[in-house]
């Protein structure tokens, strides 16, 4: 029937039907729609579709190529998993928001031009914030506002970049962005905000832990990874991204040490993991770009699994801090084991998915002879296992008994986590199907003796370090300052200070103005007030007299 069906529209239009359905019908639909969108993605052939003219610009809704498909596939898969995880939710708004959000992310991925990209980019921001607000806590409300303000600012920067870029090059086609001065950097900053590159990252670690249990799954998958996609497409080989990425990988690790909220810890590890992808984009070699794309793919699955595990704990216990949790492995054993599969995957243990993708980026650094970057990325690997594989599960599921006696998570959550866990192991054991869909042909073997020995030593001896310092690594009832301090603390103080500083000036100025105004008004009143000259009622005779005087004067002047 259709030459081409855009999965973004399948999801966004399909989402509107959700509120009309109820009960079992709605649940069936919540499972059906993501599956249909995944099939739609799968049925697409490479090429350019949906091109039309708007004003003078040629817009392309669908540019389908290998790079776009990697991201589309994993978004589609994660949407299916996330919908199963959220199946018990009765609130229609969250389902609608998640579908529109995922649809918009697909819109970005398939956008062939910067204007289409921008429209979906904004749609992502405004639909995703609902997944934070729907938690209906004061903290979520505030964090959601900060989230949307940062993204609005990022959107404006991106738009300014696009407009300048159009002015400079006369083109809005979205491919490798040419370095034409400010436009290049404005678009880059717009992308980097969504990729959560420090110091522009604080929106993520601020807002994700305040999102709903199910909403966080979609948030963790979509925004940063669409940004990684746009960076691969537009900024491959931009040298400074190598360093940004490597610093980012370590930055997230440092803050994860300090985190007490389990989802904040995981959020900081999104930043750390996206660091590998950003570094890969910066290197720009075929191996590095394949590594960045494949790492995005595996990352979405294992990070989704980790957020689902943490979400299940929060859902069942009502608590989210390491200091309030502990010893619940007896009551949630399946959640624990599934979480650990995510933990081993993100840590890149052999036979788990992270191993086949992360080592690709690290290997790309080696192939380029970038020793310092290689050491930085390996350093961050140790930190990844330390937190997501050891600290979080130890203090949540093992460790000191918190006295909590939760039941195991509901079946739909376990099924969703089971699916993600299966994929994590499947890709780890048999990476060929993943390698087959990467943007460039893959000439890389993850399972060499050297890689396996290196990775196992690195990780297991990290474990030794963890148990040696066990007394010092637990959560603390504190929060840690991050760059969001600038707009949460510094900016309000500065603005209050400015207001206070101008108060005397304001008093003087407004005092004088008032004085003048009063004089002016009293003068006006003098002539125009009820008893004043101009308000008096004059007898007709007087008027006639004055008219005659004026006419006489007129005549006089006429004859002169």
């Amino acid at each position, binding site marked *: 029937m259709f030459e081409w069906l855009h999965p973004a529209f399948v999801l966004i239009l399909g989402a509107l039907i959700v509120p009309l359905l109820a009960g079992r019908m709605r649940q069936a639909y919540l499972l059906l729609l993501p599956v249909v969108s995944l099939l739609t993605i799968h049925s697409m052939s490479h090429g350019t579709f949906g091109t039309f003219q708007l004003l003078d610009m040629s817009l392309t809704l669908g540019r389908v190529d290998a790079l776009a498909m990697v991201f589309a596939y994993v978004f589609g898969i994660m949407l299916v998993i996330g919908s199963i995880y959220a199946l018990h939710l009765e609130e229609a708004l969250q389902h609608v928001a998640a579908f529109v959000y995922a649809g918009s992310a697909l819109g970005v991925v398939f956008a062939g031009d910067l204007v289409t990209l921008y429209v979906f980019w904004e749609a992502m921001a405004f639909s995703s914030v609902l997944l934070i607000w729907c938690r209906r806590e004061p903290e979520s409300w505030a964090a959601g506002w900060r989230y949307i303000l940062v993204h609005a600012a990022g959107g404006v920067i991106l738009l300014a970049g696009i407009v300048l870029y159009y002015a400079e090059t006369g083109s809005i086609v979205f491919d490798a962005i040419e370095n034409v001065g400010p436009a290049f950097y404005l678009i880059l900053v717009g992308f980097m905000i969504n990729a959560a590159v420090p110091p522009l990252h604080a929106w993520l670690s601020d807002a994700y832990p305040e999102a709903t249990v199910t909403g966080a799954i979609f948030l963790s998958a979509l925004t940063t990874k669409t940004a990684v996609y746009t960076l691969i497409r537009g900024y491959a080989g931009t040298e400074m991204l190598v360093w940004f990425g490597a610093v980012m990988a370590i930055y997230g*690790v*440092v*803050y994860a*040490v*300090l985190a007490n909220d389990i989802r904040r810890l995981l959020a900081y590890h999104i930043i750390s993991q996206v660091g590998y992808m950003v570094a890969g984009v910066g290197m720009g070699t075929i191996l590095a770009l394949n590594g960045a794309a494949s790492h995005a793919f595996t990352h979405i699955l294992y990070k989704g699994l980790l957020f689902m595990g943490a979400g299940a704990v929060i859902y069942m216990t009502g608590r989210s801090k390491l200091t309030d949790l502990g010893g619940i*492995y*007896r009551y949630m*054993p*399946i959640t*624990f*084991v599934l979480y650990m599969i995510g933990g081993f995957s993100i840590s890149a243990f052999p036979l788990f998915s992270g191993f086949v993708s992360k080592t690709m980026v690290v290997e790309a650094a*080696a*192939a380029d*002879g970038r*020793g310092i970057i*290689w*050491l930085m990325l*390996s*350093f961050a690997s*140790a*930190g990844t296992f*330390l937190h997501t594989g050891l600290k979080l599960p130890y203090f949540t599921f*093992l460790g000191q008994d918190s006295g909590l006696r939760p039941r195991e998570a509901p079946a739909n959550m376990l099924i969703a986590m089971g699916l993600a866990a299966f994929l994590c192991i499947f890709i780890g054991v048999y990476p060929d199907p993943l390698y087959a869909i990467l943007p460039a042909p893959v000439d890389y073997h993850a399972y*060499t*003796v*050297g890689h396996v*020995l*290196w*990775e*196992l*030593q*690195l*990780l*297991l*001896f*990290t474990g*030794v*370090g*963890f148990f*040696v*310092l066990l007394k*010092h*690594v637990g959560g*603390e*009832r*504190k*929060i*840690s*300052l*991050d760059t969001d301090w600038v707009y*949460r*603390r510094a900016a309000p103080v500065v603005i209050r200070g400015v207001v206070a500083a101008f108060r005397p000036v304001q008093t003087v100025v407004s005092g004088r103005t008032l004085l003048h105004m009063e004089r002016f008004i009293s003068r006006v009143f003098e002539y125009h007030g009820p008893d004043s000259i101009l308000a008096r009622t004059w007898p007709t005779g007087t008027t006639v007299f004055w008219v005659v005087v004026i006419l006489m004067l007129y005549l006089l002047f006429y004859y002169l």
Partner: protein
Amino acid sequence: MIGGLLEWMVENRRTLRRIMYGVLALLVVLDILIPTGYGRFPWEGIGGFGAFYGFVSCVLIIVVSKALGYALLYRPEDYYDD
């Protein structure tokens, strides 16, 4: 079933720990014996470097981050509440 397995692992943690020590030692020995085939960086030829680097990284991450936390970053939980 999974619960039982976990319970068994917790009960036998001493034995498992000993096995783990064996695995750790074996890994380092293997790394010293088997050439990795990579020589792009000087450290890739050193047997057991991965073990050293992993342990040192872990300790550094904890010590440096905690130090940063106490010196600079940690605040009470209600810091932003006013």
